[in-house]
């Protein structure tokens, strides 16, 4: 499994074939191959490679969208500013705080739901799969607006539900989910969990791919549920968990739509919603500081690259690729 990871790793390994001279037929085949993939190559150059390089150049310019003619070389000043701007550090901190909460939470919930759907004790599996997946189909902005209302301290059902347990959650002193810098991270997480469908389905498919004989053998050996989960399920599922972890962390580091729709660039409450991408968007496209924005974009690029690099580095210690594929 995971050509995804293998392809990325293979790109580093660079699998060179021996330098046998190509026959005319091979050369013909290669030409056709390049022809077919040429749209992507052109797109990659135009929309990835050149813009990434250009961003680096832009980050050395003093380039205001409002006054492009005054563009001048600015050396490292954008970078200095990016690293000394308290907003950069606080947005980095806000992003990491949310990542630390939401990433484990989403991975655990996606795994938990998949285990539930895969349980032999569950009836109506198809219906439940549909129900748990459905919120992922709701357009994000619509979902955000629904959650915004359901988290209303006075009239929302979340507080009413908590109130049912006897806690004092409703009324004029209701829990103010969207006004508290810690609680708002939970609000973001609730909205995020609505989009968990894909990783849940991927986990479920992975679980269904684990041979049942393994469980039967373990059961005969007297292994309990927890033991089977630790010794069989998690190792065999680790490539899929890794995939979800990588994709999830890349996405959560670039969280934008939820904080933006709820709070715009205001950062309310108390800077908690001013994530890296919100900071970048505001500087580059609201204020029009393209040079400074490019430096921030590169900073985001570096943060994401370092983090995914670290994740790939840890992979060999806990991701088991088994023997299904060489």
């Amino acid at each position, binding site marked *: 499994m995971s050509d995804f990871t293998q392809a990325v790793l293979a790109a580093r390994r660079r699998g060179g074939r021996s330098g046998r001279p190509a026959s005319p037929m091979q050369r013909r085949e290669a030409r056709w191959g390049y*022809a077919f993939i040429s749209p992507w190559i052109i797109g990659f150059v135009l929309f990835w490679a050149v813009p990434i390089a250009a961003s680096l150049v832009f980050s050395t310019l003093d380039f205001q969208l409002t006054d492009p003619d005054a563009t001048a070389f600015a050396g490292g000043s954008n970078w200095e500013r990016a690293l000394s701007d308290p907003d950069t550090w606080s947005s980095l901190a806000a992003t990491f705080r949310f990542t630390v909460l939401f990433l484990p939470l989403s991975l655990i919930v996606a795994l938990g739901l998949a285990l539930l759907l895969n349980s032999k004790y569950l009836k109506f599996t198809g219906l439940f799969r549909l129900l748990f*997946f459905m919120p992922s189909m709701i357009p994000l902005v619509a979902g955000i607006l629904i959650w915004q209302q359901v988290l209303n301290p006075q009239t929302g059902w*979340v507080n009413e539900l908590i109130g049912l347990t006897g806690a004092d959650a409703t009324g004029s002193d209701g829990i103010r989910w969207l006004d508290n810098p810690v609680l708002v991270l939970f609000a973001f997480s609730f909205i995020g969990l609505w989009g968990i469908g894909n990783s849940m389905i991927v986990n479920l498919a992975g679980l269904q791919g684990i041979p049942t004989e393994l469980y039967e053998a373990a059961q005969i050996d007297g292994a309990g549920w927890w033991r089977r989960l630790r010794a069989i399920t998690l190792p065999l599922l680790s490539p899929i968990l890794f995939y979800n972890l990588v994709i999830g962390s890349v996405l959560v580091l670039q969280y934008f739509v939820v904080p933006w729709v709820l709070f715009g660039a205001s950062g309310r409450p108390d800077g908690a919603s001013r994530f890296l991408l919100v900071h970048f968007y505001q500087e580059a496209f609201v204020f029009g500081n393209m040079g400074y924005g490019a430096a921030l974009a590169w900073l985001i690029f570096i943060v994401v690259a370092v983090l995914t690099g670290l994740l790939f580095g840890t992979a060999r210690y806990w991701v088991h690729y088994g023997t299904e594929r060489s």
Partner: protein
Amino acid sequence: MTAQTDHSDAALRRRRRNLLLTACTTLGALLLAAVFLMPLGYGAVTALKDKDGVSDPNGSLLPVSALTFEYEGETLDVYAVPMPGGGERELALVEPGRESSTFVDPDAPGEGTIAWEGRWRTLEPVTGLAPQWGNFAEAWETIDFLRLMGWTLMYALTTMLFTVVSSAVVAYGFARFRFPGRGILFGLLMATILLPPAVTLVPKYAVFLQMGWIGTYLPLIVPQLFANAFNVFLLRQYFMTIPKELEEAARIDGAGPIRTFVRVIIPQAFPALTAVSLFHFFYAWNDFFEPLLYLAGNRDIVPIGVGLSYFSGVYNTEPHLILAAAILALALPVAIFLVAQRVFVRGIVVTGVDK
């Protein structure tokens, strides 16, 4: 003999235990699903309330409003009136007075008015289920739903066509041809899934601005002509499962690679192409960041996600309308998903697992 009864005893016990576990698991799942989907229920119910019903913290869960009764050209409020002889009647207040008032029975207005001794202000108004279907019509009008839909569909369908065609072509190249650098190029393609798009935005925006494309759909549509990593990956995986013999037969008949691709591969790959089309449709319907950025300020042509966010910013004192609009926006995607969920789920499995 005893061994056999022991055996059947154990079997019975195991059956009972399984039954219990099944009941608990299924019930637990039901509870979990109810909590998980609760906001949807809230949204649906609240979208049907009137403005007062939404903001009343002690209000009913369901969309209710005070009952009224038309009597002799006047709209009267209905109260629950305790009768002197015991019991309670729902009566419409005709003539309020300090210590005594006159009422009329809405069920039998012909019988004339009823005098009642007591303070009418202490009476409870009677409420009844009154879903405000008009909220949807109002939201529809206010956000100009047809226009939003039109632009969203235009965007989703055009880019769907572009990305499916270009991704299929590229995927075929990666699936069936050997050429130097294929592994590295494919790795690079997959790496673009992880690259943060932000790092490309500033120069792209600057160039699109130079070209006069900002405020139009061109920056959103044109890049879709150049394939997309997720789609290429999914289609490549599928193409590799198509037996090579089919292509070889076509080749023997004298078909070149393009003809083989169009005549043999495309018809065979129909399920995968449908999945990719669906994925893209949902992606485009959801897309927020890029339309926000590239359509900059051109409010007349924004797709539904951006349109909704503008609407909620302006109408934040009218939650029932916001929720009605949100439900309008989610109706079509959810309906499509319910119809096509099989294809959809299979596609997710390919991108996440079949790797």
